[in-house]
Structure formats: structure tokens, C-alpha cells
């Protein structure tokens, strides 16, 4: 009897963890390009209310603060909003749609002046967003578009992939006459990121239409990507490059390619996010050749600008697309 009970409780906990683990793979996200404001960020995450009375409050819920892009974005929004006299309450739902819904409901209960949402799932949080709207609170959607939000700020996922694919396609055209096999590190668990992958492939084919995708596997973190890339290289010794939907995965591919003895004049690796490690690697002019900057600071500036305009009743753009930039050895100095 007792052991039966134990089995059930173990199964329960394991399945909950499995769900959590699926959501936590830290990929969904985006650009990183972290700077040296690490300690500051940590303080900010924990802090909620300091100069309470009369101050105006804004709620912000992102995808996952273990992703450096969101660390940078939330820090920048916090600083810029503070200059306008707003205090930002930041929620980290760790990719879990349920806790994001709770966070939005809590923001409504606290009667914040605006809510900024990077949606974990656009359909699932619609009702919560509507609750906020019904309470008269403006909602700003970041990255994922939301039907009933007041404004959208974000980079186009497909465009991000395209920015990487175009750089890769040009390189393949120059170095390999537009011929060869490439591997793709995807993260098909998340819908938006599938578009990113499609952008990568379309971008490559724009310049090198004959390129063949010889491997297409899910890998959004360096460790998984390392194993996957070794498999790619094993199965296709002649392949000429591996491109990932984020720099995390691409960095794993980079280490695997270096380990397999690939040469930088014939083999390329590229990712998206412009994280510092990728910037360093590109600066070394080795196998790691491309990344894409999602411009988190520009994104934060736009978010705060639009937010203030909405609250004050001024005119504002409903759709605000943030331009992404390809990063390679030609403009790497700007990032170092």
C-alpha cells in the first residue's frame, strides 16, 4: 500500500518536471548580446517595489530570464521607464503559459498603468489580456502579436532567420559555388521559431539555390547541439556548414566542428542573437562566421516610447518592427 502510494507520487512529480523541462529549454528567445551589467540585473529581478507611494507602475512578463536577451531587454526597459517615472514589475514565467496568465492577472489586480507581454502562447493568454483590456489597462505585445493588444513591438522571426540565411548563402556562393550540404539546428517545439528556421533556409537558397539541407534537428543549447552536430558531421563528412536558430546551439556546433578538424576557409557556423561568446568567436575569424543582432536596447527604447504615448493618450504606431542586423567579420568591430 505504502509503496503504491510512493510510486504514484514519484510519477506525479516526474511528469510535472518533464513538462517543466520541456518548457525550459531556453531557446524560444532571441538575441542576447549581453553587456557587463550582470550584478545590476540580478538585483532588479528580485526587487519589486521601492519608492512606492504615488509612483506609476508597469507590469512586464517575458519568456524566460535565463535567456540573456531577456535579461538585457528587461534591464533596459526598467532603466528607460524609470527615467519617465515608471516602476517596472518584472515577471519571469520561465516559459510556462500558466504562470504568465497568473502574472497578467496579478498585474490587473495591482492596477498597473500598462502591461508588456512577450507571449508564451498567443491563444492561451488571450483571455488574460482581455481581462486587462476590460480593466482599462493598455497591453503592449512584444515579439508575438496579440489580437487584442494595443501595440506590437518586435523583430520578425522569419526576418531574423533570413538575416542569417542571407549571410550564409552569400558565403556558400563565394566559397563553394553555391553547392553543398548544410545542417540546421532547429527548435520546432515553438511555433515562432519554426518561422525562424524557414527564414534561414530561404535566405541560404536566395543566394545558393542548390544547397541541400542534410540534417535538421532540434538543438537550442550548446550541449545538445554538440552531440547533434557530431552526428551531422559523422553522417555527412562533406557538409559545409551548420546554422542554428540561436547562438547557443550554434556555439555547440562550433565546438563540434573544431573538434572534427574542420577548416575555417571551407566550413561555416552561424547563429542568431549576437551573444558575447558568438561575438568573440566571430572576432577570431574562425569557423564561427555569422550571427544576427536583434537589438534589445532599441527594442526597449521603442517599447517605453510607445507605452508612454499610449498612457498619455498621444499618437503612436500600432506596429513597430525592430530591424535586425547581420553580424559578421565586416562589422564585428562595432560589437567588440
Amino acid at each position, binding site marked *: 500500500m505504502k509503496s503504491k502510494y510512493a510510486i504514484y507520487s514519484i510519477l506525479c512529480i516526474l511528469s510535472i518536471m518533464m513538462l517543466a523541462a520541456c518548457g525550459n529549454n531556453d531557446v524560444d528567445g532571441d538575441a542576447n548580446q549581453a553587456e557587463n551589467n550582470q550584478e545590476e540585473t540580478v538585483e532588479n529581478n528580485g526587487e519589486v517595489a521601492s519608492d512606492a507611494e504615488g509612483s506609476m507602475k508597469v507590469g512586464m512578463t517575458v519568456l524566460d530570464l535565463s*535567456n540573456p536577451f531577456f535579461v538585457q531587454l528587461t534591464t533596459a526597459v526598467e532603466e528607460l521607464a524609470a527615467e519617465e517615472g515608471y516602476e517596472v514589475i518584472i515577471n519571469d514565467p520561465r516559459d510556462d503559459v500558466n504562470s504568465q496568465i497568473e502574472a497578467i492577472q496579478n498585474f490587473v489586480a495591482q492596477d498597473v498603468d500598462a502591461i508588456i507581454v512577450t507571449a508564451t502562447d498567443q491563444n492561451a493568454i488571450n483571455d488574460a489580456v482581455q481581462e486587462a483590456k476590460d480593466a482599462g489597462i493598455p497591453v503592449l505585445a512584444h515579439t508575438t502579436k496579440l489580437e487584442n493588444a494595443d501595440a506590437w513591438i518586435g523583430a520578425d522571426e522569419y526576418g531574423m532567420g533570413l538575416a542569417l540565411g542571407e549571410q550564409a548563402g552569400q558565403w556558400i556562393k563565394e566559397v563553394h559555388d553555391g553547392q553543398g550540404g548544410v545542417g540546421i539546428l532547429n527548435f520546432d517545439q515553438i511555433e515562432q521559431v519554426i518561422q525562424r528556421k524557414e527564414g534561414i533556409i530561404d535566405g541560404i537558397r536566395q543566394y545558393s539555390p542548390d544547397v541541400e539541407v542534410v540534417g535538421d534537428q532540434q538543438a537550442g543549447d550548446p550541449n545538445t547541439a554538440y552531440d547533434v552536430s557530431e552526428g551531422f558531421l559523422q553522417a555527412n563528412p562533406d557538409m559545409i556548414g551548420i546554422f542554428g536558430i540561436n547562438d547557443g546551439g550554434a556555439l555547440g556546433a562550433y565546438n563540434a566542428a573544431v573538434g572534427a578538424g574542420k577548416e575555417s576557409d571551407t566550413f561555416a557556423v552561424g547563429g542568431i542573437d549576437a551573444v558575447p561568446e558568438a561575438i568573440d568567436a566571430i572576432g577570431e575569424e574562425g569557423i564561427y562566421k555569422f550571427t544576427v543582432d536583434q537589438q534589445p536596447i532599441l527594442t526597449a527604447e521603442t517599447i517605453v516610447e510607445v507605452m508612454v504615448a499610449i498612457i498619455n493618450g498621444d499618437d503612436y504606431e500600432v506596429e513597430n518592427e525592430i530591424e535586425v542586423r547581420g553580424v559578421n567579420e565586416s562589422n564585428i568591430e562595432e560589437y567588440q
Partner: protein
Amino acid sequence: MKAETKTETKSSFQFKFNQEVILLLVLIGVIIFFSIMSPTFLTGGNLINIIRQVALLGIIAAGMTMVLLIGGIDLSVASNVAFTSVVMGMLITAGIPPWIAIIVGIIAGVFVGAVNGLIVTRVGIPALITTLGMLTMLRGTTFVITGGYPVFGFPESIRFFGNGYLLGIPVPAIIMVAVFVGVYILLYKTYIGRHIYALGGNLEATRLSGINTKKVQMLVYMLSGFFCSIAGLILLGRLNSGQPNALQGFELEVVTAVVLGGVSIFGGQGKLIGVVLGVFILGVLANGLVILNINEFYQMVISGAVLLVAVGIDRIYNRKKD
């Protein structure tokens, strides 16, 4: 191995496979399948890849085996690997000589195990809950000390632990073999090993027979922490960076490998050789499915199914024993 040949000669009709033989057959079956499906699977280079890829899983699983044998569980392993790896990385980037940073990281990993052990033995919180708490707490700590950013910029020598070779054999594989041999000796050649098995079989009886059960439990949790820190060092070298979010959810894969290897989740039963086979089955599957370029979602389905089939066959053949 001896047992298997004995039973087969005894009755040619009624096969009595033991767990290890079943696992070995599953492993051989999987290898044959991939060899037929892909010409590049069964090559020296790829076998080295597989051994290197399973090293992390194997090293952590060796510790987990002992924890399960005493009737406990350690869910904090993956967090501990990320934690120790980041600690080593941060100390190295702070300018501390790498060998000191590595020793401090190892001490940190053992310390985490000791805290787990103390809570389980002294406070009396069940291991499942203790280490679940530690899993979250430690992952949080790792994010706090790094601010969520990866740590990088190490001397080239650090890569040796993850990507280096000794006599043509990958360093992580050598470390894994050393860990397995060490745990084998501990479990089967020393009195501590007998205590570990006894304790998992019946804690109270073991305690009454005069064995210091708390001491044995402490040792096992500390060893689990120690192996995590070794895995953390390999990860640091492999990725050439300390990733605070590395291996999230990996503890489940470790538990899967150990349970697949035939270790009872209630303690006292199971053999290390089974765990080695379990680790390799999972490793070969992961590698082969990528080489065949099978979609990740199917990979998850297949890996889960193999676990159930392997454990299921054992259950059916050995039901009489229970």
C-alpha cells in the same frame, strides 16, 4: 554472464534471461538496426563520438546508481553539474589558477551532496523532496551568481577535459571508465558496497545490525555530488564556457538510464553493469537517430518506448521472482 549460460543449459525451452542479458540484446539489436540503416554509423570515429557523448550521462548515472541503491534519489544532479561548471568557470575568469578553481568546484559539488545527505539523514525529509528543493535552489543560485549570462574566456587547457585525447581515447571517456571502475570496486569489493545494498534492502534491519546507516547515506550523496562536479568539469571543457542553464531536465535522463539498467527505484536491487548498458543504449539511440536525421519528436517517443520495452521484457520474464 555466468548465470546466464547456466540457466540456458539447464532448460533449453524455458529461457530465463536476466536483466543484463536482455539489456545487452537490446543494445546489440539497436546497434544492428542503425548499422543497416546508415553506412556511417558503425565506424571507429562514430563509436568514439558515442563514448564521448555518453560520458556525462555515465558519470552522473554512476553516482545515481548508488543513491537509488540506498533507496534514495538525487534530482539535484543536473543543477549541480551546471553549478560546479559555472563556479569553476567564474573562478578561472577571475584569474585564479585553473587547478585551484577546479578543486574549489569539486569541493562545491561534494558540499552540495553533503547538504543533501544531511537534510535526508538528520532532518528526515525524504530524498525526493530534499533533492527536488536542491534542484531548484541550486539552479537559482547558478543564475544569481552569473546573472543569467554564460561564463567564458578560459585558457585553451580547459578544453582538454571535454575535447582532449589521451592515446587516441577521448578524455571524458577515460574519466567515465575510471568512475565506473571505482564505483564497481566500491560496490562489490568493499564492505561499504555491502552496506549500500543492505541499506536499500532494509534500512531498519541494517541499522539494528550495527551499521552506521547515516554515515553510509552521507557518503553516497557526497559521492553523487563529487561525480556531478567531475561532469561539470567535462562540460566546462566541452563547451569551453560555463552555461548557467546547461542540462536542464537532464536528471530525468539520468534516472531513466539507471532504471533502464535494472536498478530498483525502491533500493537494494540492481547491478552497475546493467546501468552501463542502460547508459549506452540511450547514447546509441540518441546518436543513431540524429545520424538518420529522425525528427526530435519521434526521438522522444522512441527513447521512451525503448525504456518501457526493455523494462517490460524483464518484468515478464522474471515475474515469478517477485
